[in-house]
């Protein structure tokens, strides 16, 4: 861990017992063992506050939004739009018009690739991504490059799982139109120097899209400070329901962009001759939106604000440091991804044991981890492994749970080696 990381992490305390009591699923057992949930990078668990908010919405307020005049519709609209304001404040966007609700990060990236990409990319233009992208930040760009004749460039990384920033600078040129990269790598936990990357991309005249799916549950995000043009994230990785996500975009860019999908709610008026599109953000929200999901996301933001993202970040940093030390005591374990700036992910392989077998055995000790390529096949090829075991943290995890992971890996070695 770098000195700057250490300095940045002052001690904040969390009442972990109280927090854990908020998450009912953490009380259940799996294979007669207490559940130890270390698959948070795939999807996080939900606190009672979120579950109840969604249930309350369905019990009392459920109706369609925006066009109804009756009480329930007005209440549903208020709940939905209040959630948008909570998101705006959460990421410090300038205005709610810049907050588009989507199904998740994937849809948000596809929206930008399809709408902005199709409108702005020409044959010979370049889109720059990085080697550590999730498939959802690779494939949409491949698709739009194929359709427009643009060229996809990929910034390499080093053996520790850090971007080669000199290569990043070298790859930026006057043909680069879009630069898309993750804030935090889902497979490695690497925290990328987003602000610097945005500055460099802007200097080259490109717009930037940041995949923030792995960042928002772990640290405060300020899109105006980062100065990114687009920022995408999912609710379900930040303790909200599945099916809801966010695309932040700067107003002037969103205004230039054609709608992504057509339908109800995204129009002002429709005739067979001409349709007038709605204002932002409705222009990009065709059809009945994911109202309950947005309500749940708003409740998750309230919850995170109450716990405090600084405290969460500090606590998880302690867990990361502890876990890294403990896992290094497991014979034959090789960590994949050891960036100086890293958070909340242990990705590793174990000599003589395939990740899939490790995952099955760990599951029967109550420990839930992810095994596989984590939707980052190019990254696995770079590290010359078919797959890794990934244990990923949230602020409800404890040192005792990391100990249980280490004990579980001992059992794996006993059974397989």
């Amino acid at each position, binding site marked *: 861990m770098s000195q700057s990381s250490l300095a940045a992490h002052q001690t904040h305390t969390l009442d972990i017992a109280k927090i854990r009591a908020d998450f009912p699923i953490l009380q259940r057992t799996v294979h007669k063992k207490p559940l130890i949930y270390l698959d948070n990078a795939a999807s996080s668990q939900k606190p009672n506050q979120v579950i109840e908010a969604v249930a309350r919405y369905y019990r009392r307020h459920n109706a369609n939004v925006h066009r109804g005049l009756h009480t329930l519709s007005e209440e549903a609209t208020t709940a939905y739009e209040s959630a948008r304001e909570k998101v705006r404040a959460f990421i410090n966007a300038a205005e709610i018009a810049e907050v588009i609700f989507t199904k998740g990060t994937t849809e948000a990236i596809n929206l930008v690739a399809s709408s902005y990409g199709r409108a702005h990319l020409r044959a010979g233009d370049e889109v720059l991504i990085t080697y550590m992208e999730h498939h959802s930040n690779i494939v949409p760009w491949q698709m739009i490059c194929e359709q427009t004749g643009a060229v996809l460039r990929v910034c390499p990384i080093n053996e520790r799982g850090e971007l080669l920033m000199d290569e990043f600078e070298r790859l930026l040129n006057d043909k680069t139109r879009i630069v898309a990269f993750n804030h935090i790598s889902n497979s490695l936990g690497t925290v990328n120097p987003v602000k610097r990357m945005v500055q460099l991309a802007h200097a080259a005249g490109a717009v930037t899209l940041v995949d923030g799916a792995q960042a928002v549950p772990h640290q405060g995000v300020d899109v105006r400070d980062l100065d990114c043009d687009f920022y995408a994230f999912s609710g379900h990785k930040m303790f909200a329901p599945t099916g809801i996500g966010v695309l932040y975009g700067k107003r002037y860019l969103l205004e230039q962009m054609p709608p992504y999908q057509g339908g109800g709610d995204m129009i002002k008026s429709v005739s067979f001759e001409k349709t007038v599109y709605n204002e932002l953000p409705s222009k990009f929200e065709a059809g009945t939106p994911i109202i309950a999901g947005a309500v749940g996301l708003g409740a998750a933001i309230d919850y995170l604000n109450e716990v405090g993202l600084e405290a969460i970040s500090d606590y998880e940093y302690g867990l990361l440091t502890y876990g890294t030390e403990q896992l290094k005591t497991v014979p034959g374990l090789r960590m994949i991804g050891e960036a100086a700036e890293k958070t909340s992910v242990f990705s590793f392989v174990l000599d003589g044991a395939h*990740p*899939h077998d490790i995952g099955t055995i760990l599951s*029967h*000790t109550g420990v839930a981890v992810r095994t596989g390529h984590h939707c980052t096949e190019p990254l696995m090829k770079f590290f010359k492994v078919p*797959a890794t075991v990934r244990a990923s943290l949230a602020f409800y995890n404890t040192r005792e749970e990391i100990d249980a992971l280490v004990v579980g890996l001992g059992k794996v070695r006993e*059974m397989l080696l």
Partner: protein
Amino acid sequence: MNGIAPGVKALYREAIKDYAARLADWPPPEVVTHRAEGFNPHCGDALETALHCREGRIAALGFDSESCVVCHASAALMAQVLQGIAVETVPKALESFENALRGHIEWPEVFDEASCLEPVRDFPSRIQCALLPWHTLAMCFHPQPTTACTEEEIPE
């Protein structure tokens, strides 16, 4: 091995681990007439099956594989059962294996030893691991081989 459920102990019992270790005895043959790659998108397992078919029979077969214990054991068992059989009987053998593995039929006599894979049934996400070598074998005989994928049906 305190604290490990019997089901998982059965999955990693010695018979399966022994077969997995025996995969090293099945390298790709020197003469290769058919070859196909297989991939399990669920976990990243990759396996290449190479065959030497002569006079309508599988004279030799072998693998290059970077996969889990279940996949390795299944591949070694497959090699043991299928070496020397008539190519025309391969589709029926594949069908029987998959049906027996899924518990739809009793294990046919020819697959007597393959029945050690039975505990895989209790782990739905691992059935694909056991099927990967078999799907890849089927792809070897496909007129236009592509990568066999365990999330798709066995190719006709």
